């Protein structure tokens, strides 16, 4: 089923016409209502009337997380605070959090885009959605909640943690959809297994996962462990939250709701737009956001976008899964490495669990990479030669992927920190200690 067929299957020409009109409106509002944009655009000598085509968006300056922090807390609101009905923030682990404000209309659009995505995954009013995303300042919980209610499903707002209770409710309520971050999902799977519960004892028919980096191999593991398809949900707090783009049954890229979020791909070095199908940094513009319009926001997420008619019938632009972050990118011995590449290499070997940690050191002048990987029964043999063989095979797979030599260490199960909440610590950089 398609939630909003008119929009989701719209021709490219009609979509561009709609986008241009909305872009002109949002730039005008931002310029007139938000001092930040007024100042930036005046300095750059670019004005709303200069936007005559979609290509003209390139004339506008970018907005970054730093700009958001400088406007902390409410500096980017385009409406009086009385019209803002909800606020979320990013985690603020790297400084002041960034604030996201929503009017009633914004919340409605948020529910609407999530409703499209949930429908795309085959969920409807008959389903019970167990939402393990945290409810609070984090957008994950509420985004799924609004979308779930919009389609009339039954939402169980359990949040992250209390894993045993999660499993108990999954069984008692016969939860049909589970929402989680991949690392928390794998944690739930481990617990389910240790409780001796089989996937057949549960009534799961679909999983939605997001707000963390993941690999295809990780998805495969999730699907195997829960015996159900799992679809990716993409979003970010600054733009709205989850629901910016979501995967359909095809599992081959995410449909980006381009009637609300206008995407560009840029080269993070030259800051110029790249053509379709080129890998670069995703830049998003909110086309309909009332409370806090963001224009040309640099997401730092690395992906590509492309137009094609999807096998699911939708014509919305598709983006690939995020392959890394421009700010997660590790520079090791001068080579750019994404943690996701190392994960991909590890999981290419059968039986390896996605529990790993990358430790960077600089004993003298050269960078050293150690990758700790938890051993599992599948890769444990009563034979030192075979164990060393597995370790070397892992190191070789990583070398093939990133072109650098690494030391792989096999460690005992469950010795690498798990996440009961939040995100797994994948990289420990001790090079400047």
């Amino acid at each position, binding site marked *: 089923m398609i939630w909003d067929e008119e929009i989701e299957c719209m021709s490219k020409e009609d979509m561009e016409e709609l986008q241009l009109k909305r872009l002109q409106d949002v730039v005008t509002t931002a310029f007139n209502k938000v001092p930040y944009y007024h100042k930036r655009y005046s300095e750059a000598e670019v004005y709303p009337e200069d936007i005559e085509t979609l290509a003209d968006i390139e004339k506008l300056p970018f907005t970054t997380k730093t700009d958001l922090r400088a406007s902390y807390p409410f500096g980017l609101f385009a409406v009086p605070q009385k019209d803002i009905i909800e606020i979320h923030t990013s985690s603020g682990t790297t400084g002041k959090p960034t604030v996201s404000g929503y009017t009633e209309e914004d919340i409605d659009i948020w529910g609407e885009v999530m409703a499209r995505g949930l429908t795309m995954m085959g969920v409807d009013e008959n389903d019970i959605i167990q939402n393990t995303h945290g409810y609070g300042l984090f957008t994950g919980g509420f985004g799924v909640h609004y979308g779930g209610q919009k389609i009339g499903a039954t939402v169980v707002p359990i949040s992250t943690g209390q894993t045993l209770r999660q499993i108990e409710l999954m069984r008692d309520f016969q939860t049909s959809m589970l929402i989680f971050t991949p690392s928390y999902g794998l944690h739930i799977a481990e617990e389910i297994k240790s409780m001796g519960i089989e996937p057949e004892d549960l009534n799961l028919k679909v999983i939605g996962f997001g707000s963390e980096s993941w690999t295809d191999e990780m998805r495969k593991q999730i699907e195997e462990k829960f015996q159900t398809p799992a679809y990716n949900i993409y979003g970010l707090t600054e733009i709205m939250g989850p629901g910016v783009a979501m995967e359909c049954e095809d599992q081959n890229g995410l449909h980006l709701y381009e009637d609300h979020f206008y995407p560009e791909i840029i080269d993070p070095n030259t800051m110029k737009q790249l053509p379709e199908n080129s890998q670069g940094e995703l830049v998003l513009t909110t086309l309909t956001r009332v409370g806090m319009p963001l224009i040309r926001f640099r997401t730092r997420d690395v992906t590509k976008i492309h137009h094609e008619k999807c096998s699911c019938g939708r014509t919305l632009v598709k983006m690939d899964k995020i392959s890394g972050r421009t700010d997660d990118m590790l520079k090791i011995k001068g080579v750019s490495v994404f943690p996701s590449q190392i994960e991909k290499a590890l999981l290419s070997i059968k039986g390896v669990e996605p529990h790993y940690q990358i430790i960077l050191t600089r004993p003298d002048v050269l960078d050293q990479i150690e990758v700790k990987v938890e*051993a*599992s*029964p599948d890769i*444990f*043999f*009563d*034979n*030192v030669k075979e*164990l*060393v063989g597995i370790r070397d095979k892992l190191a070789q797979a990583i070398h093939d992927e990133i072109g650098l030599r690494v030391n792989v*260490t*096999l*460690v*005992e*199960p*469950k*010795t690498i920190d798990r996440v009961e909440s939040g995100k797994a610590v994948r990289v420990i950089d001790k090079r400047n200690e």
Partner: protein
Amino acid sequence: MADEYVDQLSIFLENKEGRLFNTLDVIEELNINIRALSIADTSEFGILRLIVTDPLRVKEKLEEKNFIVKITKVLAVAINDEPGGLNKVLKVLDDNNINLEYLYAFVEQKTYNAIVILRLENMEEGLKILKEGNSNIISSEEIYSM
């Protein structure tokens, strides 16, 4: 019929302070005797090999504590505690091209016989050859009740 193969526990250990102690501690709590023990290690990790009187219970308990444990079939052969005793057994294997993966030995208290634990590349063939060579194969029941 007595089982001629003995169940050995093979346990993955990080080469880290306290790991061996932690493992043996779990077994002590169960009040189960360790008949023989051997460690194969590299600088980072090792394999702890144990012959215990109740391998299944120990395996279950260790797995509960997140250890990786596998059961490996090994052979126990009693040899006369005299010079050349072990060599005789090894010669039979060598003559028949049976490769040895590893071995370790312990002395049985009642008879003062040495007992050698053998892991062979081809266990079935090895057992046949040893029996033909009149080696004194100790069954799992005997080992557990020693």
